[in-house]
């Protein structure tokens, strides 16, 4: 039951209506029940995987909630290692031992969303360990925190304290809250069904055998993929947040108009998959850094985080291999270089602040960051490292002749259509990026706001590609 399926579009309003109709005492069991039902709708055995994670997280979590308990450190590490062991066994073991005849295969693979709730479970254990006094160890709340259906497949990776605080919110649920949730869901659906799913067939075609594709097609497909993955993932998150909001549960913002970032660190910390970045920061980078502030340790920490992120992405998705490691390592290197250049960049920005040259500089850095990320996406999308290198080596020599190639290339209606979708997306995001404008629009007359919603609905109706394509990040 994907978010884009007709079944889900029926499931959501029915479960929301029943939720608000039920007495308060029944609401939490209802949320747990529909979450389990939603996850089981993909495959009933998914519940077995979820149960394994839940048993580890809930039992260790309850123990860690007692500040006076002995051996808390041992329980924490046992829990973390058990969860990482499960993750490793299900995601990496079989692909890694495939060519080793004497090692047996386990024949199991991670179900959709497994690494997301495994990471959520690890966050639960560490937070309980760090802040036992703040813990309200309710099994049902903890289970909902792990299994809450809008986020189970692809995040955001929430933290236990704000999540349970949200459940205790007593302020009335106003119609505007439902409207905001609905609009967020609609915008996410537009991003997924209208933009990402229309871009996907072109990208798939060109990346199927990159050696046969014309270099300009590879360039176009790489640009299209950058927007496909953005709209696919951020679209999912918007739908998850919108759906959750209809139940009065707020999920954290995971994407914030990512391609407007003016630096790599801004891209990763404040605009792209924010919840995963902060997870790595809080549970890997900070513990690794400890009290040390040396540059070498910082660069090493950054590289470890990004290589770990690459490993997390590997194992499934577009292919098993070294491509994701290169993707992670590239982003780590970008960030290290950026950190090394920080004094120069800061100096330049201070000098140019308020001037026209400052605006040009801002535009230049945005484009630079986008293109650096674009190069790393090639390794993310390609079926394996070899294909990624093929794409880069085929594109690179043609760059000096690019204007000539573009003028001679027989662009089709499909190219124009897809490019217009991206232009439309950027136009909307540019408006949303302007805080003042966004505020003014939210206070616009009712008819104008309705028109905006109708445009979204008609975009879905006329331009959407309703083929129930899975979300890319469900596979990780």
């Amino acid at each position, binding site marked *: 039951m994907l978010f884009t399926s007709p079944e889900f579009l029926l499931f959501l309003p029915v479960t929301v209506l029943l939720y608000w109709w039920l007495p308060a005492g029944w609401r939490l069991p209802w949320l747990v029940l529909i979450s389990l039902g939603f996850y089981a709708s993909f495959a009933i055995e998914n519940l077995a995987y979820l149960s394994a994670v839940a048993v580890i997280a809930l039992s260790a979590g309850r123990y860690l909630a007692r500040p006076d308990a002995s051996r808390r450190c041992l329980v924490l590490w046992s829990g973390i290692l058990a969860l990482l062991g499960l993750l490793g066994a299900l995601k990496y073991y079989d692909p890694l031992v495939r060519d080793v005849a004497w090692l047996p295969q386990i024949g199991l693979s991670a179900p959709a969303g497994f690494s997301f709730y495994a990471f959520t479970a690890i966050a639960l254990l560490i937070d309980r360990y760090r802040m036992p006094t703040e813990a309200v160890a309710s099994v049902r709340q903890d289970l909902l925190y792990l299994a809450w259906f809008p986020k189970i497949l692809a995040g955001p990776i929430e933290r236990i304290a704000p999540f349970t605080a949200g459940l205790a919110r*007593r302020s009335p649920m106003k119609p505007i809250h439902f409207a905001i949730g609905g609009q967020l869901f609609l915008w996410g659906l537009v991003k997924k069904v209208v933009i990402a799913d229309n871009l996907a067939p072109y990208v798939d075609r060109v990346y199927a055998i990159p050696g046969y594709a014309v270099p300009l097609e590879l360039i176009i497909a790489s640009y299209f993929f950058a927007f496909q993955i953005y709209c696919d993932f951020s679209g999912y998150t918007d739908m998850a947040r919108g759906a959750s909001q209809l139940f009065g549960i707020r999920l954290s913002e995971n994407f914030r108009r990512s391609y407007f970032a003016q630096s790599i660190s801004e891209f990763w910390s404040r605009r792209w998959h924010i919840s995963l970045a902060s997870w790595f920061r809080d549970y890997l980078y900070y513990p690794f850094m400890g009290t040390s502030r040396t540059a070498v340790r910082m660069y090493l920490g950054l590289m470890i985080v990004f290589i770990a992120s690459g490993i997390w992405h590997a194992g499934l998705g577009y292919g098993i291999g070294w491509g994701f490691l290169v993707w992670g390592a590239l982003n780590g290197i970008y960030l290290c270089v950026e950190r090394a250049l920080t004094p120069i960049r800061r100096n330049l920005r201070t000098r140019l602040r308020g001037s026209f040259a400052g605006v040009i500089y801002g535009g230049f850095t945005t484009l630079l960051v986008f293109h650096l990320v674009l190069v790393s996406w090639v390794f993310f999308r390609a079926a394996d490292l070899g294909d990624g290198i093929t794409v880069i080596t085929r594109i690179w020599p043609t760059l000096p002749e690019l204007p000539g190639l573009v003028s001679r290339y027989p662009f089709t209606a499909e190219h124009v259509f897809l490019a217009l979708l991206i232009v439309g997306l950027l136009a909307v995001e540019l408006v949303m990026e302007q805080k003042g404008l966004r505020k003014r629009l939210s206070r616009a007359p009712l008819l104008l706001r309705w028109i905006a919603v109708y445009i979204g609905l008609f975009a879905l109706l006329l331009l959407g590609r309703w083929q129930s394509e899975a979300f890319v990040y469900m596979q990780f």
Partner: protein
Amino acid sequence: MDIADRPVQSFPRRLIVGFLALWGMLYIAAVCVAEVTVARVGQGTAFQKLLSLKGQEVDWVVLGASHALPLVYGDVPERHRADTAQSMAVLAEVGAGPLYNSFVFQQALEDIRPKRLLYVVDSFAFASPSWNEARISDRKLLRKTPLRASTAMSMARITVRHKASPTGLADYLTGFSKLNPPDRFPQAGWRGAADFDRTARISRHAVQSRIGYLYPEPPHADDTARYLDILDALFDMAQAADIEIVVVKLPMPDAFRTALPDEAAFDQALRARLAPRGIVFHDLSADVSDPGYFFDTDHLNRSGVDALYSNFLHEILAFGSMP
């Protein structure tokens, strides 16, 4: 209590009703525009052709799958009219098995009251639900099927009796595929009339790949029997309406014909159904089999249709079901 008893403020009901009503009106307006476009523009599907012929009496109706379509590209209906003054409507459809043919034929009975039926038989169309139940709910066909009460009723009956996907009926009634074309930028596939004047070089690989496409799963005797029952029911309808029936298997290149799985068993089963009804079966599959008469692995090109018409079809159509 694990969760707060959070009150919900009442909704502005009038506003919600207004929003939904306006959306409903906009949707209906869009569907109307799409319907008018589908009804007026193009003769792409059998149902579009039937709408444009509605009320006329037609002498011959041709049903079948894509192998019958070269008859249209080769102007057989016009040549037949010139030769015999008899009209002909080719209502065959790409990848259409007997269930889809039956769906079309029911509409034809209402719209054009045909006198004779030429059924172009293809064994692959009796082998898989892909060419039958799935075609009823195929969005590419629904996109060009004008909305009519009689078609909707017939589709509903098929959905219930033959367990076709109800989403097809819902799609048809809401006009969804007309608003949201499923093949906005088709990349590959059968180009039909565009290739009609070509002559193909038929390779073994091309034949294998085509057979693999036509038989997504190996033919199963139960499926074949079920679809032959549906063909029987179609012939019942036709004979009840005093329609003469001729069944023909069109020419194929030898390389393709010999690669078809269980063709002899299919022919035997078909003949066993036709003989008690007194329906003549003209098996032309081994005639006009020179590869130069085909524009791909199995479809006649212009010279193939010329040879077929002048050597066989002209006579068959002139004498109807006379042996």
